[in-house]
Each structure stands twice: as C-alpha cells, then as structure tokens.
C-alpha cells in the first residue's frame, strides 16, 4: 500500500514567467536556477518570456571581462534546457515586436504566442512562478 502510494506519479504543469532583462537585476538568473532545480522532479515545465524577459534570449551576449561587463553569461544555459526535458519555451509576440526583435535574434527555438494563446496556456497551468 505504502509502496503503491510512493510510486504514484503526480505530474503537475509548472509555468515560469520571465519578465526581467538579464543583467540589471538577478531575477533572470534566479529563475533559470529554479527551473534547473525543478527539472529534477520530472514535472511538465513551460517557460514564458514576456516584456523585458524576451531580452534574456537575445543572441550574442558577451559579458566577458575583456568585453567589459565581467559577469557570468548564463544565456547558453537556455540552450541546454532541452537536455533537462524543458522544451516548451513561449515568447509573447507583442513584447518581441515592440523591442524590434524577431525569432532570428533569439538563441533558442521558441513558440511565438499572441495574447489569446498566451492566456490560454497560462490558464492550463497548475503552478505559476513569476520572476
């Protein structure tokens, strides 16, 4: 009986909402850390990039000491998410458009959602974590 309960898998839908630019605050990096920790629990994970969160996925980030900023460039980690079965990355179309960005500017494959689709996806979640 106890074993049966232990084996019973509860898979919840987790959504991480990212709305901050990558280096000005620590939110983006912290979100990524939580996503990676959460990935160990085999849940159904989605990531949404809205407002300045879209900037987290900008290609060609160079934070090296030589370039000047001297910070950890965590943008490559988004490309590794696939290996942790985190494959559902959604970008808000309006946020991308008003920043003059297109899918070609992003370092990972994402699904672009309009407001109706984004709202629908959010409504399907069990847990929503905001950063």
């Amino acid at each position, binding site marked *: 009986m106890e074993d049966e309960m232990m084996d019973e898998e509860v898979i919840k839908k987790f959504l991480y909402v990212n709305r*901050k*630019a*990558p*280096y*000005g*605050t620590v939110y983006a990096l912290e979100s990524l850390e939580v996503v990676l920790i959460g990935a160990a629990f085999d849940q159904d994970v989605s990531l949404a990039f809205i*407002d*300045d969160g879209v*900037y987290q996925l*900008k*290609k*060609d*980030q*160079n*934070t090296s000491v030589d*370039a*000047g*900023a001297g*910070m950890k*460039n965590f*943008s490559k980690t988004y490309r590794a998410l696939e290996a942790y079965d985190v494959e559902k990355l959604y970008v808000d179309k309006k946020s991308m458009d*008003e*920043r*003059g*960005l297109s899918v070609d*500017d992003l370092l990972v494959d994402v699904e672009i959602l309009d407001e109706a689709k984004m709202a629908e996806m959010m409504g399907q979640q069990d847990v929503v974590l905001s950063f």
Partner: protein
Amino acid sequence: MLHTVNKSPFEKNSLETCLRLASAGNAILLFEDGVYGAVKGTRFEPTVSNALTNNKVYVLVSDLEARGMNTDNVIDGIETVDYAGFVDLVADNKSVQSWL
C-alpha cells in the same frame, strides 16, 4: 550637467522623464539596462532620436555587448563610450543626475 539612466525604458519611466526634464545641451549617458533605450527598432526609438536634436546621448558599449548588441544596433547619432569615456563624462560635467 550629465544625466545617467540605468533602467530599461520598458520597465521604468526613468528615460522618458530624463528626456522630458533635461535641459538643452545636457549630456545623457545610458548604461546597464538603460542601454535598451539606445537601440534601433524599439518602441522608444522616436523619443530618443528626437532628444538628439537638443542633447548629446552616449551609451556604454560593454553593457550593450553583455546584452547581445553592439555599435551597429545603436540609433544614429548616439555615441558609444567605454568605461574611460564614462569617467571623462563625469569629470567634464559640473554635476551628475542619476535617474534610477
């Protein structure tokens, strides 16, 4: 006088208020998340381009590069500076106003 803006124009109104209240001839430096205001193609490009008629606008190049952009992405008329240029701007101006 030098004005500095280090917040994204999409997240805070620091840049808009700075541009609204800066006197003609004042220098404006965009750094950290403020560099998004210097980039071509955003919703804020017309506002920033307009400011260039009365003010010199500078952007810190290392903060641009950290965020995946470079000199090519910057609105025409905005000057890129490195850290030494940042120091020169502070030294050359009588006062600095930081729009946080």
